[in-house]
């Protein structure tokens, strides 16, 4: 749905604005949705259904950067078993992925590559920034080579704080990202709610 009537949040950054632009958000739009546009009741139900779909099933991008990727692997594996939430199929190709988890410090050399991979994902796509390095550069923030947060490069929907972030809470949160994120058609809200 359009984000016009949503109160703008202070979590927005220039990156996101540049990407999202003003007005109707195309990322969750479709021909069918436009056709329902004249009948709000069906539209709401349809949006609700699509939110459920996007929240219940996700393909993660196989995307390991640093320390947090080890914990990410643990989240996929036996103990936490991310697949319980329908998100346990890591895809190696961005063309088939919905969610990109950014699990580590972004440095100057990697940032453009990450942007490229993110760009190549099909809409609707979501970004989970995992750990403080992706939020702000974390303990390496003062480094000459470190990008101060993934948000400088790509729009992040959810931030999971901590270093070597413990991800026990993440599966559920990730699931909520998609739901909350697109309920209003605006992932900005996800940052606050999630």
């Amino acid at each position, binding site marked *: 749905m359009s984000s016009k009537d949503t109160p703008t949040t202070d979590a927005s950054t220039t990156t996101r604005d540049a990407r999202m632009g003003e007005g109707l958000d195309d990322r969750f739009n479709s021909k069918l949705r436009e056709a329902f546009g004249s009948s709000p009741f069906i539209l709401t139900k349809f949006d609700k259904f699509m939110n459920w779909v996007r929240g219940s099933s996700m393909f993660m991008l196989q995307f390991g950067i*640093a*320390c947090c990727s*080890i914990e990410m692997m*643990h989240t996929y*594996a036996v103990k936490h078993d991310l697949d319980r939430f329908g998100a346990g199929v890591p895809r190696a190709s961005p063309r088939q992925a919905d969610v990109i988890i950014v699990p*580590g410090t972004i440095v*100057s050399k*990697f940032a453009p590559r990450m942007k490229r991979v993110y760009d190549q994902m099909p809409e609707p796509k979501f970004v989970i920034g995992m750990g403080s390095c992706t939020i702000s550069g974390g303990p390496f923030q003062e480094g000459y*080579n470190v990008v101060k947060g993934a948000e400088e490069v790509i729009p992040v929907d959810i931030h999971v704080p901590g*270093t070597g972030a413990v991800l026990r809470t993440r599966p559920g949160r990730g699931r909520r990202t998609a739901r909350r994120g697109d309920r209003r058609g605006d992932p900005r809200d996800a940052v606050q709610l999630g």
Partner: protein
Amino acid sequence: MSADPDRTAGADAGATETLPVTEGVEADRLAELLGDLVRRRDEHLNADAAFEVHPDDVQETLFTLRDEAGFDHCSCVTAQEYDDRFESIYHLKKYDDPTQEVSVVVPTDKADPRSESAEPVYRTADWHEREAYDLVGIEYDDHPDLRRILLPETWQGHPLSKDYDQDRPQVVTLQEHANPLEEDHKDSESDTMFLNIGPHHPATHGVLHLKTTLDGEQVADVDPDIGYLHRCEEQMCQQGTYRHQIMPYPDRWDYISAGLLNEWAYARAAEDLADIEVPDYAQVIRTMSAELCRIASHMLAVGTFALDVYGDFTAIFMYAIREREKAQKVLEDLTGQRMMFNYFRLGGVVWDIPEPRDEFFERARDFLDGLPQATQEFHDLLTTNEIFQLRCVDTGILPPETAKSYGATGPVARGSGIDVDLRRDDPYGYYDELDWDVITQDGCDNYARVLVRLREVEESAKIIEQCLDLLEDWPEDDREIQANVPRTLKPDPDTETYRAVEAAKGELGIYIRSDGTDTPARFKIRSPCFSNLQTLSEMAEGEYIADLVAALGSLDIVLGEVDR
């Protein structure tokens, strides 16, 4: 690739005749051997000798030391800038006896920092010198390929040099990142195809970039491109105080749960520098927890190697993660953290084994009791699997001489039959009091390396078992976990030390130079993965693409440590 013996034969194969070693006299003998090459002798902590040589005599000196004195292991090259000069230090060791160290110090002119490359002597110097060029700005004559290694090609300045302005924006546009190989005619009019494997690729274990030239299915040329995770660890450590602020960083070098092993590397170097004696009780705890980390790390290595060879998140990967979880659980009990432990302190550990102690011991023993069955399971599923053997035996050959020339250590060296393990050869902690063995395999192939890791897990279990016995019986009033360390450590100006421990991946060394303040003037990390990764092109060129992936997996690199 066939294990052609001719391939391994080389000049340095004959470097076996060593001078007779006698403590203390050794340095003098070396000085005698080098004769006029030595401009000045220096006393470095731990190194038997430090010789200052002229920038143009580097190769001659190193050749002499390698061929006539048997220093066949160039473990590290440290570059640093003083107020009046640049300096490269070559830390040489012997594979036979790592306690024998010699440093070759090469001071160069401030205005035109230029010295001779050591690459013809030690292949490993290739990358080390590139790093020195990249971060400090020393140029090496004769170097085959002197370009930036960790930072992007477009980077302005050398960040670890004194006049570097960190606040100057580094504008690296996407355009400038356009493929530098565009003009290269690697693919026109030939049968080869230039393929980027990584930085985002499932097989690269992080953000490694392999510039590969393929001829059909075979790898004609592979050039690892690193630096996608260069987090300025050395700068971070140079900004931190010895006592507290540095310790959290080692956890993030080798982040595959080998945190305590890394912390120990820093602890060992700093304790050496500041002359701190660690109480025995703390040493036992350190030994035990470090070995737990080693198990966790090797489990992941085996799991991800299986992932590379199997191609999917298969049973073996999941079982390996399961064992890791158990080890992590014990470590979490002990340190309060799953990954970034920050448990060691200079002079000991931060706290004692958690109360109730019995519960901790029980948990640890439970883990150890289950381990033989788990390793058996790995052997059943992995090492005795015929397809697995088909894939791994005689692929990714790394002959011992090549491994030595590249400064390979750890399981990679031991898989090539090099009997080296700092825990035994240069004892620290409580290792020399315990009963365990160094595992070596003569296979030199991917299979041997996996086998070494699996066997090392069993040895680690033995060590932990003994440590647990010791800890349980330790008299209650003698449980001293930390030595008395001054609140602010300020080592004497210009003391230098290079100290290494056996981390999960091999020799993890720290070079620290103090300038009399409470932060190090130069903090250099010798990462085992950095050296090990260099061997990849030796192992993979001429092999199939699948073997390239397997060889990379068997090296068990972790990019946090390669790039630092």
